[in-house]
């Protein structure tokens, strides 16, 4: 089956800013795809290009088999989008906005609408002017999740939601995704991306730096090793794939690349191992290393 979203070498300039710099991205049918990256990396810009709201300079993007710029209307019938900054019409009520957006998208399921409103504990009869940030976010989420579409594009959908609502959101997305429906989820919350996503892409400065399942990504990273030895270790710092070495007396701690682990442990044995502790990298470290550009 062809992927739901296929982006090849996408470039987008804003004046002299190169917001997207040859981005590649693939989202497969039925998957929840986590989309991560530091502030200003180009996540929102990517989503807007995928919606056909921005004209791209070069490269190609296909969403649900369609060109988002040319077939935007046809495409929008089949997807729902939750923007990062939800701006609503202050004089309409939350319920009116949900219905309006749903109808403009081509209809929404009334029972799902009612169930979602109950689940997110939203009062739909209030004017959106009086809503808190989290409640505005809920309006956009309910409007998107209650519609009958194949693809969800979510830009930091849980910003402003309390932990309880965040959990509801995860449950709802988990239920929603069945039947070959797909989600592209931009987020800064690692635990959320970890819990929901089948695959994850990390972008920085408008370029894809890493993509794959979490398990695959873990493989790509370093293992922290702390060892006590019989002799003072020497020469280990200079080994290929060994970083951040700190030697204190007979002790050593360092970060070792996946491919160098075998050689490194063998080298340790040469100094006589008293104790050895290894720690797989936390996800946090994984992301931080990518975000910093390490």
């Amino acid at each position: 089956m062809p992927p739901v979203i296929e982006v090849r070498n996408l470039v987008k300039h804003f004046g002299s800013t190169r917001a997207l710099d040859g981005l590649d991205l693939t989202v497969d049918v039925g998957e929840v795809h986590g989309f991560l990256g530091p502030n200003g990396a180009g996540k929102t810009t990517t989503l807007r290009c995928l919606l056909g709201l921005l004209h791209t300079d070069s490269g190609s993007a296909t969403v649900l088999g369609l060109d988002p710029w040319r077939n935007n209307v046809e495409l929008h019938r089949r997807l729902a989008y939750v923007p990062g900054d939800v701006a609503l019409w202050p004089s309409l009520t939350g319920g009116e906005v949900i219905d309006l957006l749903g109808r403009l998208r081509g209809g929404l399921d009334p029972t799902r609408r009612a169930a979602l409103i109950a689940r997110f504990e939203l009062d739909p009869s209030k004017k959106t002017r009086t809503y808190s940030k989290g409640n505005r976010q809920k309006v956009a989420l309910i409007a998107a999740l209650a519609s009958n579409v194949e693809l969800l594009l979510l830009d930091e959908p849980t910003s402003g939601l309390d932990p309880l609502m965040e959990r509801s959101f995860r449950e709802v997305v988990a239920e929603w995704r069945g039947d070959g429906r797909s989600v592209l989820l931009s987020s800064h919350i690692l635990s959320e991306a970890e819990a929901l996503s089948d695959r994850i892409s990390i972008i920085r400065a408008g370029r894809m730096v890493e993509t794959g399942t979490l398990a695959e990504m873990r493989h790509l990273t370093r293992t922290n090793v702390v060892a006590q030895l019989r002799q003072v270790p020497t020469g280990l710092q200079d080994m290929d794939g060994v970083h951040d070495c700190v030697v204190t007396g007979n002790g050593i701690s360092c970060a070792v690349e996946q491919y160098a682990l075998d050689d490194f442990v063998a080298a340790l044995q040469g100094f006589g191992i008293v104790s050895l502790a290894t720690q797989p990298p936390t996800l946090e470290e994984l992301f931080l290393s990518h975000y910093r550009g390490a």
Partner: protein
Amino acid sequence: MSQFTGTRALLRLALRRDRILLPAWMLAYLAYSVGGTAAAIALYPTMQSRVDAASAVNDLPAMLVMYGRVWDPQSLGSVAMMKPIGFGGIFAAILAILLVTRHTRTEEESGRLEVIGSLVVGRWAPLAAALSLATGVMTVLCAVNALGVIGTGLPAGSAWVWAISVSLCGLVFAAITGVTAQLTQAARAANTLAFMMLALAFLLRGTADAAGTPAASAWWSWLSPVGWQDQVKAFAGDRWWALLPPVLTIALLTPAALSLARHRDLDAGLIPQRSGRASAGPGLRSALSLSLRLQRGLMLGLLVSYLLMALLLGSIASTANRFLDSQQMRDWLLRSAGSSDPFVAFMVFEVGFAGVLSALCGVILARRIGSEEQAGRLEPLLATSASHRRLLGAHIVVALLGTTLLQLALALGFWLGNATQSGNFSGLPEAIARTIVYLPAIWVLVGLAFAVFALLPGQAYLSWVAVAATVLVSEFGTLLSWPSLVLDLSPFTHVPRLPATPMLWTPTLWLLLVSGGLLLLALARFPRRDLATP
């Protein structure tokens, strides 16, 4: 005093944000007041020419309503400054209203004031800064106005009393807006309330002059801040004491606004919010129904104001025949309105004036989609199956429909006001034809506003520049005998002035063609540009 802390910093911020707007506006104002006066002085070299020009206003209720009475037909200043005296205070008030709302309610609505409110800034600081800004601007305006008019050779004392009365009128409306900005939550509503007060003040002054005697206006002029500006009788006696009512009003309203500001929450109005429907009614299902819903409040307000204004003017129109006495008057009317029949001339003047006003309203309706884009509210809509064209089309329909309704209300009001006075109920179709014939010209400016939105979204001010230029041409163009090339630039120059002139189809079709072309251009180009983000 601590509630005023931070006022100075906010004032500096406001000056920084308005560093282009304020000088540009000031220049445009001077072009109108000083430039207009300098040019007009040359038109009235002899006493007879002044008396003639003055009677063209004083003998016609329509002109009295618009410009107010020329209090001394023999005074050069009184005659040459007829328009700056009539409209000077109103233009100052418009700027004051926009400035105060812009730096109080708009900031609050956008959430920027929340950031500021968390700093070392007192509760009164934003309002105090906005009012100080208005005071500063009006003070500078007063000085340049007075010095400019003195520079044209008119008497200094009168120039000062006029300039002060104009700036005080602006400041009264700054204080009024300080109050309305506390009452409502939405900046748009605060502006609307203040502008309605201004319209009311203008109508009070106008009708009081039309109903008054050559020596004094009717008493209700004294209820109106615009009336106070008229009552100083600059260049015709210089009644300095008439500056007292605005000063007192400012002294009363400013503490009232501050006390209201103190007793309300951030982001709240004093008029509380009610709950609404939990689900949308069956009507709210398209881009068109949404834009109708968003603009219906404004439209209703405008329609009611138009109907009232037209009723009033229509009932005065039937008295127009009384005043025709001299051959000069007939000549003057023939030249400037195309007919020497005072009733017909009255219609031509009023309908022409209202036509330009409708164009302004049309541009306000057309600009709505731009402010929706700025607020980020087009993004969720365009992510649904509503296309760019449909969305823009919806706003175009509302603007075209809105201006049509305004012109119809105008016709209906004129006809009804005149019919109830004269007892003659025929002529409704003719009344409608007279106002409808302005629509193509109005739509040219509306089309231009949409084209600017689609092609130059960052240059929204161009639509207002076009409106301002149109106002200048229709106010001064024929009076100062500007070259016809300049006059022809205004779409209103090409409108047949029914019933003074016969219907002219060629220019009307051209105007329709131009406005249609601009709208099509907008529809063609909007889908091809990036959506702007807040």
